[in-house]
């Protein structure tokens, strides 16, 4: 059993680790960048990057450069300067929109279907082989098929989100529904509650924490997958933005994107965690 540690001590250690990491990075980048400068034609030097002019390779960006770039991006996150040049806030909003639609559709399909599977052992046995084969497939493997049949890249991205978030919700719902205590169902029957009433008033509240756990897993996966899907189909979204900055070999922007993707993923997880806390029950 762990003993409680004061909050401030953990926070201090976190900060110290961060400072050590960033400081080490900055130091390594600064010392690694300078290669023994050979005398070089100034006209040639003007045509290549600073590091290439000294016979080296462009180094990793330093944390200070990344910080400056982050400030520049966050100062104006919602600008639109043409189809291919929009602010980072807008890109994240596009990604969240796709995840939201795909996730909502998946919940609409998975939760009722999970209920049926959980309540009917026959259906559970019949559908099990399909679920077991399709579940481990990487959602991105569906992408070419989706593009080919749907013939629309943004709907294809939503479809990929749908297909990746449907399985954890489906399985967890079925598991939660199947695991409702027999006594409670018997009590409901004694009280002459109808099937629908039993499902809504007894099974749903009892299975809600398990269903929410499935939803929480799903949204995490969906947020992981949207970045990869948008790198493939392009157009808009944070994944496309990463691809685009990679195109420009701008590593500072990619580090920033990693940071923002992490923060947004954390917020999504917290949101569902908060909902899960609201429906939790204890015996």
């Amino acid at each position, binding site marked *: 059993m762990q003993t409680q540690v004061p909050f401030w001590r953990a926070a201090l250690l976190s900060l110290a680790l961060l400072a050590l990491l960033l400081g080490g990075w900055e130091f390594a980048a600064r010392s690694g960048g300078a290669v023994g400068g050979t005398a070089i034609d100034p006209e*040639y030097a003007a*045509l*290549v990057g600073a*590091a*290439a002019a000294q016979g080296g390779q462009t180094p990793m960006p330093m944390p200070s450069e990344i910080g400056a770039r982050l400030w520049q991006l966050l100062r104006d996150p919602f600008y639109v300067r043409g189809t*291919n040049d929009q602010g980072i806030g807008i890109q994240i909003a596009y990604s969240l929109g796709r995840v939201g639609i795909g996730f909502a559709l998946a919940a609409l399909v998975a939760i009722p279907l999970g209920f049926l599977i959980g309540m009917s052992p026959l259906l559970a046995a019949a559908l099990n082989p399909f679920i077991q084969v399709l579940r481990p497939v990487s959602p991105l493997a569906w992408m070419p098929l989706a*593009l080919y049949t749907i*013939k629309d890249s943004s709907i294809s991205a939503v479809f990929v989100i749908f297909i990746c978030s449907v399985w954890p919700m489906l399985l967890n719902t079925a598991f939660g529904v199947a695991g409702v205590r027999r006594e409670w169902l018997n009590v409901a029957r004694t009280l002459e509650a109808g099937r629908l009433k039993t499902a809504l008033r007894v099974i749903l509240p009892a299975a809600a924490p398990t269903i929410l756990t499935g939803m929480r897993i799903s949204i995490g996966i969906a947020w992981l997958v949207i970045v990869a899907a948008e790198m493939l189909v392009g*157009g808009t979204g944070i994944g496309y933005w990463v691809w*685009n900055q990679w195109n420009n070999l701008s590593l500072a922007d990619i580090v920033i994107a990693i940071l923002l993707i992490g923060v947004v993923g954390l917020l999504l997880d917290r949101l569902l965690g908060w909902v899960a806390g609201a429906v939790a029950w204890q015996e």
Partner: protein
Amino acid sequence: MARLTRTPFAPCGCAAPHEPGFACAAPADGTGAHGAAVDEAVLRAVFPDGPTRRAMLGRFGAATLMAAIGGVFPMGHAREALAQAPAAPEKRDLKIGFIPITCATPIIMAHPMGFYARHGLNVEVIRTAGWAVIRDRALAREYDAAHMLAPMPLAISLGVGVANPIPWAVAAIENTNGQAITLAMKHREKRDPKDWKGFRFAVPFDFSMHNYLLRDYLAAHGIDPDRDVQIRAVPPPEMVANLRADNIDGYLGPDPFNQRAVFDGVGFIHVLTKEFWDGHPCCAFAVPREMVQSMPNTFAALMRAIVEATAHANKPENRREVAQAIAAQNYLNQPPTVVEQVLTGTFADGLGRVQRVPDRIGFDPFPWHSMAMWILTQMRRWGQLTRDVDYRAVAEQVFLALDAGRAMREVGLPVPESTVREHVIGGRRFDPADPAGYLASLPMRR
């Protein structure tokens, strides 16, 4: 520039009503795909029975047959009547996909520099992630037209590398030359291709000039491109990162990524493809074949915008301005100096020298049928195309040389007399009259 702005105001003599400042949408001479459509319609009317028509065509040939019909039917008038359709484009709001490379210069610059708007079109140019994505989005008609590699419409039309053959067309060539072989810095002493056994190369796509040129170049130096080296398809933006990570030894890729490797100190430019085949095509402005018939005025307006932009980009005095216009984040998203070095041809080669090659990249819209024929021989040579085809007939179907020529004539550019010419590739003559003989004479084939 002066001539280009003046040309659209010149009297065009098409007699169709259109606003001043816009050239007429369809030309009066009735050649090209328009004319072909009339010919076919008349032929069908005269010989409604399919087998008879085909037998007659086989026996006498299309030209003789049309000449005979022309004796009793005013073919010229019919062609002109169709060609003189009203000038207003059927569809003004168009989406055009592009890959962020300098090959797409005319397609991209026509947007910020107003060439599309001048011809009454409201075009959105959309940066796209890779060649397979461009192909899928174009086939799904999310794009009205697209920037493609010149071999792609040939492959799509023949049903190679796609599920079903779909008639696609090269309306204009985007650029000539402008590619290079870039090698990792550690190979700076290995300049002879004979030392390249075991190298891992990247090309942008299987159906690309890059793939065919690299294979031809290697084969000419006795290196078997399938057995002695590895050739992978890698999207251009990922080439520099892979070169840096030592995943590949080099690539034959599009600019700005050759120059970008130099800029970042990762690689050096071994040879420009222009040294190998001066004037080779690379990328194309591709449209679905049916667009020529279903939206003739939009097609004509688009052609004029593209041809004008191509001519503007080709002038050395405009290159700096063009580089500034397309390097921005909305288009190529590259440091301006990299794009400028590519377009002006004054560039650092990665080995400490500044080279001056003004024709490092060129812009010439004319889609020579002989270029298509060479591409087809290479598709056959390396086993992508597993059956024999009539090279000339496929080239004429896919490369719309007559339509491009008409648009060029309208904006005052010289138009070649013939649609085929002799090319010299790696010191070997390609005679368009004998593509099969050329193919048989090549070393190595699958």
